[in-house]
């Protein structure tokens, strides 16, 4: 079942492009990474999903409901952390939590306090006295305190320390395992690699790719380095599935395009001293998508 579904979603700002014909399908219980360079349209898409902005074209649905018309109903089961989080400076962590509970009309204090304890957040401090990272923690607590079915996070780990990032990842993974859905935008590729089941990459408002992370990893290809035994074996012609071949003496470096077993089948019996096959280089792939939109 799809939790978020957009069909040809378009949102423009006058002559400026926001998102263009964006079609997403976020399955229930997944951690979905929404990636793209600055100004790619990630925040615009999130704002349309939350009913802040009206789509210029196409449709956007969350829980099967229209994001603009049924925004209020949808948000009962959604937790949201804005990218540029600003809170009422006169509130304390405790009063902010109470306020969210009052607006939502449910008890969020118990779970909110548990989360605060886990994140090492002092709820008695005023927002104006909090550092950026602490405010971010409070924002996360406020977004997660009602145990939402869908958590939408706009660059959640920005300004969090590595320990806190780790705790958040564990928490998000746990939520997804219990059937909740996490949709988050990020610039940190390592966390996407560690956390996501599925990713969508947008560039200049358009969807470049949308697929399970495993498939993306497979398409990323491996880097292979072969150290030949002698001059004669070093002259071996590389097969067509080795791309960007570079020779230096007895060493051959290339990108593997295709499954590893095909390469293993080919290299068997050939005289080599050493062989290394590095894991898929997702970062290089993401950069490739960011810069070229997936084209060559």
């Amino acid at each position, binding site marked *: 079942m799809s939790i978020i579904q957009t069909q040809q979603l378009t949102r423009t700002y006058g002559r400026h492009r926001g998102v263009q014909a964006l079609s997403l399908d976020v399955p229930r219980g997944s951690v979905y990474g929404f990636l793209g360079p600055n100004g790619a349209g990630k925040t615009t898409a999130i704002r349309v999903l939350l009913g*802040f902005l009206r789509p210029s074209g196409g449709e956007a649905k969350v829980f099967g409901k229209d994001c603009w018309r049924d925004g209020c109903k949808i948000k009962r089961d959604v937790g949201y952390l804005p990218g540029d989080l*600003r809170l009422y400076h006169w509130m304390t962590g405790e009063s902010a939590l109470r306020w969210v509970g009052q607006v939502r009309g449910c008890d969020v204090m118990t779970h909110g306090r548990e989360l605060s304890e886990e994140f090492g957040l002092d709820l008695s401090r005023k927002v104006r006295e909090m550092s950026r990272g602490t405010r971010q923690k409070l924002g996360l607590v*406020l977004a997660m305190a009602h145990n939402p079915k869908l958590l939408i996070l706009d660059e959640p780990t920005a300004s969090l320390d590595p320990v806190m990032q780790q705790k958040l990842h564990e928490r998000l993974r746990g939520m997804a395992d219990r059937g909740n859905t996490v949709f988050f935008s990020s610039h940190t590729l390592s966390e996407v690699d560690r956390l996501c089941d599925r990713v969508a990459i947008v560039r200049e408002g358009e969807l470049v790719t949308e697929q399970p992370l495993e498939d993306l990893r497979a398409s990323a290809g491996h880097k292979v380095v072969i150290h030949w035994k002698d001059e004669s074996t070093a002259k071996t012609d590389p097969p067509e599935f080795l791309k960007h071949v570079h020779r230096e003496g007895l060493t051959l470096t290339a990108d593997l395009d295709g499954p590893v077993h095909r390469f293993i089948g080919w290299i068997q019996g050939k005289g080599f001293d050493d062989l290394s096959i590095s894991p898929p280089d997702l970062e290089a792939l993401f950069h490739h998508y960011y810069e070229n939109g997936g084209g060559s």
Partner: protein
Amino acid sequence: MNRGLLFKSIREVWPATLLCGLLAAAFEGLVAAIFPGIQQQMGAQVMSMEFVKRIVEGMLGTKIADQIGPEVLQAVPWAHPILLALVLSHVLICCTRLPSGEVDRGTIDIALGLPITRWRWMWTETVICVVASMIVVTLALVGSFIGSSIAGGERGLSLISAGMIYVNLLGLCLAFGSAAWLFSSLGDRRGKVLTISFILIVVSLLVSYLEQLWDPAGYVAWLSALSYYRPVNILRDAQWPMRDIVVLYAAALVLWGSASVVFCRRDLCTT
């Protein structure tokens, strides 16, 4: 209404309400206490001087038939720029908080991320603004009554006159407040919205003032909300200014309705 938003708004509005209310009460009280003495000190000749009469007419926004009588002096503190500045500043502070104030300080994203319809939010804020304006005007009246009782009590406002002034002044506040709300709904920068609203009030005040001194200003005077607030007429005629009240409240309703429609339908997020 939503309890959470109600508490948040009360927390944000009460300091300005208390400050403006107490200052208005102090001003009205002071004037009510010292004006009878001033009237006695001023000779009839001064009161009948043409330029004094014109200045007072300009301030009160209406013609004074012959001499400046006690009801005219009683009306002065209710049309005085200090009182108007206090009550109208307060209403501008309250009515520009949503949405431009929220967008400006960047809190609109966190608030709109919660399950509350914009319409319900608007209602909650409306109740807060109306009640806060009522408190400020009530405090001004209370100050006036206290001042009058200190001065002897005989020349104070009657309860019925006070009621008429209350309803008329509240209508003025709501009309300007609704206009400010409409500007706020159309804009994203609170500073800009406050400036535009302030200019509207100054122009309105100027037109109302000039109307008595310069005939051409009379042609556009009907556009000025202050033309529908004449405390001297209330005190002189002792009759409900029904036309003025209807115009002010109708304008407030139309402007508030327009602000609601814009707020509920427009794109909103931190810019």
